């Protein structure tokens, strides 16, 4: 039995009047009074390997999810990832993957997110492409190891080595070998991270940003990967080591192609 009443103002105390003709609610009974308007349920997201996040970033994530939710009718999931989830505020933008089978224009959403003061990079993928990226692309695996999602995100895929794709990915990192002087610290870091991700992936390692950063520190004898971003590494010894890892990785890929592991 429930009765809805209105709180009215009294002289010494306020009260709620209830009808005299009623079932239950006998004189002398104790009752619970609580507001009729229920609190809106708190929206829950799924956090994968995000140990902590600044409250303001969480607000941004909520806003991003709301904007996408209002602008897209059918989607399977929304994934927030990338450097935005790193500790601090060193990020340039917020990486968002919208998983959907439909074709969507992202410009309106990007513009709305921009109003929050943050640039959004939106990638539209269907489930199949996402699963394929997750099973065969080291950088995708690394990115998706740490993310916030709207819905539960489960991809139980077997790691699949596609040597031709890895060759293509590794080639990007070749840029650093001859162009150290012209590249900025953060460009160097991105290229090293890309190479290291391919290198570790070939060893069958499950990638995460932490693992890749730790391997970079170990391989280049650094206390902190930020030294690369700050462009204050010793060039000669660094490049020697870089070239050695690059060559080792490339040889392994060529061998893989040769053995026909991924050839038809």
């Amino acid at each position: 039995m429930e009765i809805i009443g209105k709180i009215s103002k009294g002289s010494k105390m306020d009260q709620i009047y209830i009808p005299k003709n009623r079932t239950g609610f006998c004189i002398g009974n104790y009752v619970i009074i609580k507001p009729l308007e229920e609190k809106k349920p708190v929206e829950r997201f799924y956090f994968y390997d995000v140990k902590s996040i600044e409250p303001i970033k969480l607000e941004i994530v909520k806003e991003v999810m709301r904007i996408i939710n209002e602008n897209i009718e059918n989607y399977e999931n929304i994934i927030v990832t990338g450097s935005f989830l790193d500790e601090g505020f060193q990020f340039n933008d917020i990486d968002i993957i919208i998983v959907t089978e439909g074709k969507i224009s992202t410009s309106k959403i990007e513009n709305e997110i921009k109003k929050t003061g943050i640039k959004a990079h939106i990638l539209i993928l269907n489930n199949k492409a996402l699963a394929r990226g997750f099973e065969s692309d080291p950088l995708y695996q690394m990115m998706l190891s740490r993310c916030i999602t709207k819905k539960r995100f489960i991809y139980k895929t077997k790691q699949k080595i596609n040597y031709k794709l890895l060759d293509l990915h590794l080639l990007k990192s070749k840029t650093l070998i001859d162009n150290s002087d012209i590249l900025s610290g953060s460009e160097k870091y991105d290229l090293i991270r890309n190479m290291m991700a391919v290198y570790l992936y070939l060893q069958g390692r499950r990638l995460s940003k932490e693992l890749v950063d730790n391997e970079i520190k170990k391989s280049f004898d650094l206390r902190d990967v930020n030294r690369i971003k700050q462009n204050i590494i010793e060039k000669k010894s660094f490049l020697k080591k870089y070239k050695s890892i690059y060559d080792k990785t490339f040889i392994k890929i060529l061998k893989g192609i040769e053995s026909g592991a991924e050839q038809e």
Partner: protein
Amino acid sequence: MAQNRNKLIELFIANISNAVIHEILEQAVIEEFIADKYRKELATSFEVAKRYREKINPVNKPLPDKDIAYIKTKIINKVRAELTTRISKGYKNIDLDLIGNLVDKALKDTEIE
């Protein structure tokens, strides 16, 4: 640090070659390739080549014919050698016929010719 013109041209050649190789390999795996958003943001060889181009005189007009011929031949040879290495290892679907057009396009896009 000021770099001499020849050195800048060699660096330009290395980067454009890399960009052309990348484009041809991308064509070879197009069906398995998914949106490469993260890597698109890496400092691509083409972008780096453009930075060198901005330092090679004459900056705002095409280079002399002699330079163009040298650069073009060197890029074509470099790209062909890299791709041939892969073909010899059994890499299929690499279309060497794409080289000429892609090199011409890259040189036009960077205002070398």
